[in-house]
């Protein structure tokens, strides 16, 4: 148990290490949305790879602007295809960079999911939700209400705050559920209790009703996590949509936003597969040694993953309150 705990420490401390928010200095050439608060300080691991990803992401970001202009000016299928593929690639790299709720998705999967398939569904649905939110925000504020790009982008941090609170809420719910379930099983399955060991984890086989109940719970948790991630619009999509609007081509921007979300979904899916697969492997191997240990690890993951979500939600929320405003002219 102690050994496991030691192994878990890095996993649990990692997001904490990220919690120092980077303060963006004011620039004389600020663009809308760049005051988005949720950028965290760089950790030591993998930073070279990360920076490479950032460089690629920027290349595709710039390329998107001219691709979008080309579609608008030429109205040709080849220009359209160019924009879709560049947006898709931007999405792939963008999702590997900051934001996009990847830590949230993986923490949630770590805590509450054992099916790879549902992990992928979660990745795709939350990416589509983020694209839809971006389209809705720009569509309502900039197109319908006539907000400027700057004004539209400045509402994003407010929406993000709601998302962060929801994320923390899902974490609290996961922990509460895990703790409550322990009590529940203690009362209902007292017959299976091992009296020689004062441990509330019993190795009993779940009945069909219990499996069904767990599945419903899983979908409920998934819906909650998709809603909380999806509420936060994709920053890249917001900028592309605002840019598209300045070119008088909102629908082309929406097309680009969707292509982007397919790209982000693929990256996040890869992470989801890796997370669920390695979690299951750890549980299975632990189960071969000792099934109680496996259950204990699973419970630790639930509580730890829930705690991660709470900490991340609160840290991101706090960061969003102290983010400096950017002058725009």
């Amino acid at each position, binding site marked *: 148990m102690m050994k496991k705990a030691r192994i878990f420490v890095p996993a649990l401390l990692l997001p904490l290490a990220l919690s120092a928010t980077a303060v963006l200095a004011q620039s004389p050439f600020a663009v*809308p949305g760049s005051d988005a608060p949720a950028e965290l300080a*760089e950790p030591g691991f993998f930073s070279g790879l990360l920076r490479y990803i950032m460089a690629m992401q920027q290349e595709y970001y710039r390329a998107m602007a001219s691709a979008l202009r080309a579609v608008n000016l030429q109205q040709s299928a080849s220009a359209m295809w160019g924009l879709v593929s560049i947006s898709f690639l931007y999405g792939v790299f963008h999702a590997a960079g900051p934001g996009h709720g990847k830590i949230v998705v993986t923490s949630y999967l770590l805590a509450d999911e054992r099916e790879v398939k549902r992990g992928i569904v979660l990745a795709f649905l939350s990416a589509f939700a983020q694209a839809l939110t971006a389209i809705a925000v720009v569509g309502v504020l900039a197109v319908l209400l006539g907000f400027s790009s700057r004004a539209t982008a400045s509402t994003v941090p407010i929406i993000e705050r709601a998302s962060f609170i929801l994320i923390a809420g899902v974490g609290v719910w996961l922990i509460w559920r895990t703790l409550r379930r322990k009590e529940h099983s203690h009362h209902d399955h007292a017959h299976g209790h091992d009296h020689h060991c004062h441990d509330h984890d019993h190795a009993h086989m779940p009945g069909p009703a219990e499996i069904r109940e767990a599945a419903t719970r899983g979908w409920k948790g998934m819906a909650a996590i998709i809603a909380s991630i999806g509420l936060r619009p994709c920053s890249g999509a917001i900028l592309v949509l605002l840019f598209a609007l300045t070119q008088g081509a909102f629908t082309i921007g929406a097309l680009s936003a969707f292509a982007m979300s397919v790209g982000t979904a693929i990256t996040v899916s890869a992470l989801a597969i890796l997370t669920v697969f390695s979690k299951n492997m750890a549980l299975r191997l*632990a189960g071969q040694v000792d099934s109680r240990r496996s259950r204990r690890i699973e419970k630790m993951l639930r509580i730890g993953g829930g705690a991660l979500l709470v900490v991340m939600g609160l840290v991101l929320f706090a960061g969003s309150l102290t983010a400096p405003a950017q002058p725009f002219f």
Partner: protein
Amino acid sequence: MRGNRLWSIRAALVALVLALTPVSPAAAHPHVWIDMQTELQFDAEGRLASIGILWIFDEFYSAFALEGAEKTADGYDEELLAGLAAINLENLAEWDYFTEVTTSGQPVALGAARDGKSTWDEASGRLSLSFTVPLETPLQLESAPAELRIFDPTYYISIDYLKDNPVRQTGAMPAGCTVERRTPDVENVWLSLPESAFTDPSSQLGAHFATIVRVACPPAP
């Protein structure tokens, strides 16, 4: 056997940690890109007197900077563009126009920028800004070479030389002077930066990516 399994559990848990690791975000990165040309302007005595700078902004910034401004068939109103240039230079003054001239490792004092002008190019959809930054005291290059770097220390803006005609000279540049340009490879810089470049606010992240233009003249006889 049991020990082996424990080891496997550990390996699987490490894999889990790795699954979480690449999600950690990087901090500073450019949000605005500028393509640049510069001009080394020499006075009649052959001293480096001022730096002429042309910046062409990326499509995103160009679109946002001119958002809401009325556009006619001829592009944007001259007065509007002049106003934009004036505001830009006013804001840039506190950053020394992102311009750094050094000689023998010492910074050279710069004056207030003049001749600010904004232009819109309809074909590329890009806005540009040209201006001149004078050296407070013209610099005699025969005694020591000068180095010019133009960069945003926060790296919010990435400023890169155009391939086409990046650095020109005007005026009476002394005979035998050489102009060299050294541009760091962006990918290599990203891969080799120390962590402190991101975490230390005084580290001038943007400086790591800045092109250095070095002007050296043979010693006066």
